[in-house]
């Protein structure tokens, strides 16, 4: 299998090519743009036999691929940040219609002020829509997760659309070696498109007209059940993908140093790599720290986290998003999971890295060390919102200085 030097965005494009997608539609937005550029080139030079619809907005992009998918074609779109928010009502509509679809989300901060750098505010905003949401750590996983997304979405036990998250610039614009599977192998592995219904003259099918309230309620319940079923399907696909293509990631979460860990870092996205480096450094200092990288925020890996929570002394959650006035979204889900399992573990939620502010391995190490000290001193430590402010602005006085300069 050829090893190519690919950015995360190009890895997405190659996965879409390999899945033999029939209809693509997207609207450019930084840092997603190079996906639509690459796919346009692939379609124009004949590498990919698909219709490329160059729409006038993200709202139309998702509606176009949803229309195409409803009519029976494998379809794909990609976006970021404001584009994702702009298509938000169609995001709900696509999932509620149970139409298989795949969308890449290149994660990026939301304005104002304008900012094109990575955080997870945009993708977590889609958490409740009924889409399966995966977030990759590096470019190889971006390709593998995107390719798997088609099989997952089109599995009759699932029939839900899938988002594949990749961090803006850190992955989207950074080249890394990526093993690109052979087309023949993918053709053997990925079945022809399946979907619950097709809207066509032959089917005479109507989708989306008013349903009784009780039926609407049951449709939500069935989506929740499909999410639960997706947990099994994700693990199956991960395993068989490993057998065919040589790479498995562990299903809903990927564990690093978890087996004997006293402390578990819960995190998602590209900065998980820095957290893993920090965990190795901390082990050298005698702290048994592991990293549970969340690969899918929906369906939520409840069972895996319950198991980790039941044997760890402390769980430290790193959120790259915040529900202002509430908690970090990963933290909320982890807390809900731990409480439903007894809630005896020390728990800390760290909010960091918003708007692309860099958090390196050293910072992870320092932050985690100080939290571990608090847990060990007190026997139990609970802090839902530990703000890891940018280092030049880490005191109230320094923040006020900045505020004065801008006002």
């Amino acid at each position: 299998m050829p090893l190519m030097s690919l950015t995360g965005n190009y890895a997405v494009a190659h996965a879409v090519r390999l899945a033999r997608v029939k209809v693509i539609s997207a609207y450019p937005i930084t840092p997603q743009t190079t996906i639509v550029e690459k796919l346009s080139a692939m379609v124009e030079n004949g590498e990919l036999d698909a219709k490329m619809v160059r729409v006038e907005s993200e709202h139309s992009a998702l509606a176009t691929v949803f229309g195409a998918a409803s009519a029976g074609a494998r379809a794909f779109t990609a976006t970021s940040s404001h584009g994702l928010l702009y298509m938000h009502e169609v995001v709900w509509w696509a999932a509620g219609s149970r139409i298989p679809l795949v969308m890449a989300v290149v994660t990026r901060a939301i304005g104002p002020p304008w900012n094109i750098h990575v955080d997870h505010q945009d993708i977590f905003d889609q958490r409740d829509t009924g889409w399966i949401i995966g977030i990759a750590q590096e470019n190889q996983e971006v390709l593998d997760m995107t390719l798997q997304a088609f099989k997952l979405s089109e599995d009759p036990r699932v029939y839900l659309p899938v988002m594949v998250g990749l961090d803006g610039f850190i992955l989207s614009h950074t080249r890394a070696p990526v093993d690109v599977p052979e087309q023949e192998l993918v053709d053997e592995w990925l079945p022809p498109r399946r979907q619950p219904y097709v809207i066509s003259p032959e089917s005479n099918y109507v989708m989306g007209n008013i349903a009784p309230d009780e039926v609407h309620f049951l449709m939500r319940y069935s989506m929740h059940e499909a999410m639960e079923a997706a947990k099994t399907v994700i693990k199956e696909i991960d395993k068989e993908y490993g057998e065919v293509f040589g790479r498995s990631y562990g299903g809903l979460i990927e564990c690093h140093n978890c087996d004997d860990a006293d402390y578990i870092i819960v995190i998602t996205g590209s900065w998980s790599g820095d957290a893993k480096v920090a965990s190795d450094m901390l082990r050298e200092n005698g702290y048994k720290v592991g990293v549970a990288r969340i690969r899918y925020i929906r369906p939520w890996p409840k069972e895996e986290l319950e198991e980790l929570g039941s044997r760890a002394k402390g769980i430290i959650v790193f959120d790259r998003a915040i529900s202002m006035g509430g908690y970090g979204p990963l933290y909320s889900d982890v807390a809900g999971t731990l409480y439903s399992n007894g809630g005896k573990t020390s728990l800390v939620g760290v909010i960091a890295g918003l708007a692309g502010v860099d958090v390196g391995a050293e910072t992870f190490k320092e932050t985690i060390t100080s939290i571990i000290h608090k847990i060990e001193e007190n026997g139990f430590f609970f802090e839902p919102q530990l703000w890891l402010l940018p280092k030049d602005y880490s005191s109230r006085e320094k923040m006020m200085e900045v505020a004065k300069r801008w006002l």
Partner: protein
Amino acid sequence: MVINLRKLPDKKYIMPGNAACPGCPETMGLRYVKMALGDNVVLVIPAGCSSVIQGISPYSGINAPILNIVFAAAASAATGMKAAFEAMGKDDVHVVVWAGDGGTGDIGFQALSGAAERDEDIIYICVDNEAYMNTGIQRSSLTPYGAWTTTTWKGKKEHKKNIPMILISHGVKYVATASVGYPTDFIEKLQRASKIKGFRYIHLLAPCPVGWRFDPALTAKVAQLAVETGLFPLYEYINGEFKLSPIAKRYKDPSKRKPIIEYLKLQGRYRHLLDKPEEIKKIEEYIENTWKLIETLEESFAPGKDRGKKIFDAL
């Protein structure tokens, strides 16, 4: 082209038990669409009265495959469906958008403009009842001057937005106006449009008894009066050629038009201005200006003269 009603499909397209109000122009229009185009059709319907008229699933009051879609996405969802059918080798399926004046000229306008500019191979029908009727009669940009709505209690202050002209300016292949008062004219236009490849737009006037405040028995009559008074000219624009429809030709001559008051007095939405001659004059002026524009278009885009085509080619 002469339409022989006997040769059109004798199928039930609008089913009993649908949720339309008495005298609804949308069920009339939908029936004509299916009569004209037959069964190789999928409908794309954004939010509006026709989302409700279908009734409660798993049943549907409209005998056609339908993709219901969020308000602002009708033209783009239709684009995607057509792309899929083409990708699967089913090029002959007609993807037809059936959207209201809000879904067309206001909230759905961006997607419409995008699809028109890209010359997507779809038929877009705006069923224009001149206000947001499904939410209970609020003004739209297509509500005419003077009309009462529940957001313009003293009458709308602005004239109707001219969507067909905007579509002509997009350089699309086919634009027509039609009225539910003239079914054979509408059916003819649909059949002509169906033979053209590319973006096709039909603007269908659909008088709403509930929102316009008239007797539900008079829907067809009000729809005819709009044409007979010269307020709503029927025309076709095909590939750079503009021509008045046969029914509408005689109303070029102002003396052949019925007085606008005959149209206005049937409708409760104009009740407050019936005793205000200066307001009625404004509507009369609007009619005059409309026909001036029509004359200009007739001249510029006259069949055979190719001037309109030249105008676009020069752009």
